[in-house]
C-alpha cells in the first residue's frame, strides 16, 4: 500500500472575482521509503501540489480531489489533526532556510523546541540529540552551533540545520521544496548527498520538488513532470530521462547546455511556460510543441498514469545520451 495517494487533485485561488486554476487532475502516489521527484518550471503547480499535502494552501484556495496519507484523508482533517500531521508524520524542507527559521531564536532553540513539544523529550536530552543530528548532517561542532543564531551561519549550514530539524522528528515523508536551489553547486551536491543518505537509512519517503531534472533523476526513484498544473509524464527516473515519452520532457532534457559538448545553438522550446489558468482548451503544451497536430488543440489529453500525450505511441523522442 502506498504511503501517500493523491488523486484528482485540483486547486484554484480567487483572483479579481474569478477562480484561477493552478493545479488540476493530479494523480501521484509515493510508497513507503520511496523518493519521487516532482519536476516543473515556474507556474507548473509543483509547489502547490506539495503544499496541498500539508494543507498549506493559499488563503481562500479551493481544493478538490483526494489526498490520502497512511489511510487518512488529509483534505478533511481539522486544524488540530493537520498540526499533528505536520509535527510528527510529514516534514517539510523549504528553499530558503533563512525565511523559515526564526532569526531571533538560537539554532539550539529551533532544533530542540519541536523535540520537547512534540516528542516530549527533556530539554537536556533534546540538546544532546540535536548535537548528534548536527554531526550526521556534517556539522561537527554542534554544541557551539546550538548557541549560535541563524545570521551567523551560511545558507548551506542553515539548510543542513533545517534538514536536521526534520530528521529529528523521524517523519514518514519529507517534502523538500527546491531544498538546494539557493545554494552553491558544491554545497548543493553535499546537501543532497546528506539528505539522500539519511533518508534511506531511516526508510523515509521523499517528495522532491525541483526545476532541475538532472538533480531529480540522480536522487529519486520515480519522476513526475508537471506542466501548466498537470502531470504530463510520470515514470521510473532512469527510463524517463533516457527515453522520454512526452515532448515537453524531451524538450527540457535537450534545452539544458551540457558539460561534455558545445553546440552552436541549443534546441529550444519556443514561447514561455504557462500556468494552468492561462492554458488553451486543448493540450496546454501544444502551442510550444514541435510535434503538435491540429487535433492537439481541441481536447486535453488524458494522463494515463504514464504520459498525457495523444501522440506518445507514435513518437520517438530524444532523451539524454
Amino acid at each position, binding site marked *: 500500500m502506498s504511503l501517500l495517494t493523491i488523486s484528482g487533485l485540483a486547486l484554484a485561488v480567487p483572483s479579481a472575482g474569478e477562480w484561477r486554476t493552478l493545479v488540476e487532475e493530479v494523480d501521484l502516489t509515493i510508497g513507503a521509503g520511496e523518493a519521487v521527484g516532482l519536476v516543473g*518550471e*515556474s507556474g507548473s503547480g509543483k509547489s502547490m501540489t506539495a503544499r496541498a499535502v500539508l494543507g498549506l494552501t493559499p488563503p481562500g484556495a479551493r481544493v478538490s480531489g483526494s489526498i490520502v496519507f497512511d489511510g487518512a484523508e488529509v483534505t478533511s482533517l481539522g486544524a488540530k489533526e493537520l498540526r499533528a500531521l505536520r509535527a510528527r508524520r510529514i516534514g517539510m524542507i523549504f528553499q530558503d532556510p533563512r525565511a523559515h527559521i526564526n532569526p531571533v531564536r538560537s539554532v539550539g532553540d529551533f532544533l530542540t523546541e519541536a523535540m520537547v513539544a512534540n516528542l516530549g523529550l527533556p530539554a537536556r536530552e533534546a540538546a544532546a540529540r540535536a548535537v548528534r543530528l548536527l554531526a550526521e548532517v*556534517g556539522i561537527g561542532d554542534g554544541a557551539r552551533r546550538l548557541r549560535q543564531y541563524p545570521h551567523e551561519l551560511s*545558507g548551506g549550514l542553515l539548510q543542513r540545520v533545517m534538514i536536521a530539524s526534520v530528521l529529528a522528528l523521524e517523519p514518514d515523508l519529507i517534502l523538500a521544496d527546491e531544498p538546494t536551489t539557493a545554494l*552553491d*553547486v*558544491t*554545497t*548543493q*551536491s*553535499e*546537501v*543532497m*548527498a*546528506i539528505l*539522500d*543518505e539519511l533518508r534511506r537509512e531511516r526508510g523515509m519517503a521523499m517528495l522532491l520538488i525541483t*526545476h*532541475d*531534472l*538532472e*538533480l531529480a*533523476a*540522480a*536522487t529519486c526513484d520515480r519522476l513526475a513532470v508537471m506542466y501548466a498544473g498537470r502531470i504530463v509524464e510520470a515514470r521510473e527516473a532512469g527510463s524517463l*530521462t533516457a527515453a522520454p515519452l512526452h515532448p515537453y520532457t524531451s*524538450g*527540457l532534457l535537450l*534545452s*539544458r*547546455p*551540457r*558539460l*561534455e559538448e*558545445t*553546440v*552552436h*545553438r*541549443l*534546441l*529550444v*522550446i*519556443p514561447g*514561455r*511556460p504557462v500556468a494552468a489558468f492561462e492554458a488553451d482548451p486543448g493540450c496546454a503544451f501544444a502551442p*510550444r510543441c514541435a510535434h503538435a497536430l491540429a487535433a492537439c488543440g481541441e481536447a486535453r489529453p488524458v494522463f494515463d498514469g504514464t504520459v498525457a500525450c495523444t501522440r506518445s505511441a507514435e513518437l520517438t523522442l530524444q532523451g*539524454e*545520451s
Partner: protein
Amino acid sequence: MTVIQAERLRKVYGEAVAVEEVSFTVEEGESLAIVGESGSGKTTVARMLLGLETPTSGTITVCGRPRAAGRVSSKERRRRAREIQIVFQDPYSSLDKLQRIGDVIATSLSLHFTLTPAELRRRTLELLESVGLAERHAAMLPKQLSGGQRQRVAIARAIAVEPRVLVLDEAVAALDVSIQAQILNLLADLRAPGGMSYVFISHDLAVVNQISDSAIVMHRGAVVERGPTADLLREPQEDYTRALLAAVPRPGWKPSRRGT
C-alpha cells in the same frame, strides 16, 4: 585588439579581502567567463569593471583608456557607457516598474544618439525585435512581462548603446530552463555580427561551456585556474575546479559529501 585589461585588481572592505590580485584580458569579440561560487569575488570584479566599485589597488583599462578613480564628468560617463554595459541577474529589480518597455530602450538610445522621433521609434522597435519581443510589448510595464521577457528588455537596453563589452552577471541564473536556452541562443546571435565582447559571470559550468571561449575560476577572491573553457572543463588542473565540475548534476551523476 584588447578591450579590457584588468591588472592586479584588489578590493578590500574593512578587514575583508573580497578580491586579491586578479588579472585578465578580454580581446575584441571574445567571451570570457568568470566562474565562482558565492563569496568568490566574481560580482565585485564585475562591479569594478563597470565603475560601480573602485578598486583598492590595481588598474582597469577599457578600450585602451585607463579608468581613473574619482568623479568624472557626465560626458565621460556617457563615453564609458558606450564602452561597457551590464545585465544583472534579477530582471525584477533592474527595471523601473513605472517605465514602459519602449521608454526603457528609447531613454537609453536618446542619451547616446541624436535621433528624430521617427528614428527613435524605429530603432526602439528594431532592438525589441532583435531580442525576440514585439511592438505590442513597447507599451507594456515590466509587471506585465514574464521573467524571461524582462531579461530580454535588460539585454536590449544594454545593447542599445552598441557597447564594446557586455558584462552579464548571472544573467540567466534565475530563468526557467526553457527560457534560459532561448536567452543563451540570443546571446550567441548578438555576438556574431557586431564583434561585441562578453564577460559572462556564472556559477553554472554547463552554461559557461555553452557561452564562453575562455574562463577564469575564482575562489575566495583569487584566480585559481584559467584557460580556454574547453580545456578547463575537460582537464581541470586544480582541485577546486575539479570539485566544481564534480558537483554538476548530469546523467549518471550522484551527489556526494565533500572529501568522501
